[in-house]
């Protein structure tokens, strides 16, 4: 392809005269068209100077190939420059941090994490970080604050960072050497006790309140404490629950169809421009991930994974709704139980029937491990003792 072609028009000249000039000067051309008083032809740009000098009424009609592109730039360079300038300004502004919001109830943790973030240059009027850098920073902050921080999530929302902190709550589990009692985890009727170490204070069929000592680590002889050990044993009891469950007669349940659709799109200032896999449905659970997010681009390429669901309208009779309420109540209890724990008995205390729903109040007796270790605290010795 000839990249320097232009189309010209020569007016008020005779065809023979022009052709003879072109042949004698070896000016190569193509697509010659003769009209009433003008001749159109395509020539190399370098030959234009000679022809325009020889034939006064010669004009360029259009540029072809690369010349066309260059001519466009020359003609619109102010517009193009302002567009590039605007793009750069937008790019810079959209990549500057204007706000940082840290979400946590712990003010001390907030203060510490703010200092860490500042160390990693995450502060107002600094440039946004890439996802890779953010991941690294998150890892480092988590490592350096592993005793106080369970999780940190840094989310970019426009020109802001929203930082969610999850504080680490350390449940101090008494170690093997700690002297402990076994206490009741909750109010219960004791149905089974095995004491391996320590002194049993309660018996089977005795009712205990929450935190009441069942097996103590104190070894008691003649009402005197002769030694203190770590109490060991197993305690199971009957625990009581009341569960209230409501089931509407008419409701919608959703079931997965197993079908997945990947929607790839460009996120341009919050506007979605689909590249592939557009599928509009309200019956899906969507999971979005970032494919391309570069600081020099003002758009992101995103992937939306749509898991399709089928919505099923359920119309239950009163009896069916009753059974469904029982099933849901049982599930709410059994979900909390371990393998060796089970429902002993249940009784429906109250049935409230409404025009649109049924409400059951059910009492449960549950066989459950009620043992919990609690460290034995010794009173501070008084002064002078």
């Amino acid at each position, binding site marked *: 392809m000839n990249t320097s072609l232009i189309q010209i028009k020569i007016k008020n000249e005779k065809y023979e005269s022009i*052709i003879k000039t072109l*042949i004698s000067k070896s000016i190569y051309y193509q697509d010659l068209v003769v009209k009433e008083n003008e001749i159109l032809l395509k020539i190399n740009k370098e030959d234009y100077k000679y022809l325009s000098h020889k034939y006064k009424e010669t004009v360029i009609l259009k540029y072809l190939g690369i010349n066309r592109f260059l001519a466009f730039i020359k003609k619109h360079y102010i517009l193009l420059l302002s567009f590039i300038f605007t793009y750069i300004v937008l790019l810079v502004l959209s990549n500057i941090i204007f706000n940082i919001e840290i979400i946590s109830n712990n003010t001390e943790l907030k203060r510490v994490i703010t200092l860490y973030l500042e160390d990693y240059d995450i502060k107002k009027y600094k440039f946004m970080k890439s996802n890779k850098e953010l991941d690294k920073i998150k890892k480092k902050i988590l490592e350096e604050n592993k005793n106080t921080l369970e999780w940190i999530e840094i989310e970019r929302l426009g020109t802001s960072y929203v930082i969610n902190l999850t504080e680490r709550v350390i449940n101090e589990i008494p170690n093997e050497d700690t002297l402990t009692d076994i206490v009741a985890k909750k109010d219960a009727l004791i149905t089974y006790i095995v004491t391996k170490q320590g002194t049993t204070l309660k018996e089977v069929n005795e009712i205990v309140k929450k935190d009441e000592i069942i097996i103590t680590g104190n070894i008691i002889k003649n009402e005197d404490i002769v030694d203190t050990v770590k109490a060991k044993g197993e305690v199971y009891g009957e625990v009581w629950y009341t569960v209230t469950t409501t089931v509407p007669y008419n409701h919608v349940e959703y079931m997965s169809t197993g079908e997945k659709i990947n929607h790839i799109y460009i996120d341009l200032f919050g506007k979605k421009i689909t590249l592939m896999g557009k599928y509009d449905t309200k019956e899906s659970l969507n999971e979005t991930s970032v494919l391309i997010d570069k600081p020099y681009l003002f758009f992101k390429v995103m992937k939306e994974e749509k898991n399709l669901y089928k919505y099923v309208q359920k119309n239950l009779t009163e009896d069916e709704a009753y059974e469904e309420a029982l099933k849901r109540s049982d599930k709410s209890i059994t979900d909390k139980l371990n393998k060796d724990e089970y429902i002993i008995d249940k009784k429906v205390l109250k049935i409230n029937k409404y025009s649109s729903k049924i409400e059951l109040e059910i009492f449960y007796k549950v066989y459950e491990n009620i043992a919990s270790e609690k460290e034995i605290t010794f009173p501070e010795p008084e002064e002078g003792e």
Partner: protein
Amino acid sequence: MLNNLTTFLGNEDYRISILNNGIHILNYKSIVDITETEALIKIDKKLIKITGNNFRLTKLDKKELLIYGQVKKVSVNEH
């Protein structure tokens, strides 16, 4: 360009193609004269004389040329 390549690969000296509305000549040496009714083209050691009506030299390249018009006669003279 494709024509030139074919010529190069096929070791073709020249080619004259008579079209419905014109004539196409590849590997010409020079144009001696061209009017609306007659064209004299030098090819190799031959002189090609084309007669007809409404001749327009539509394309002129270093190696090829295309004349549109009604071609009546093509004669080759060795010289």
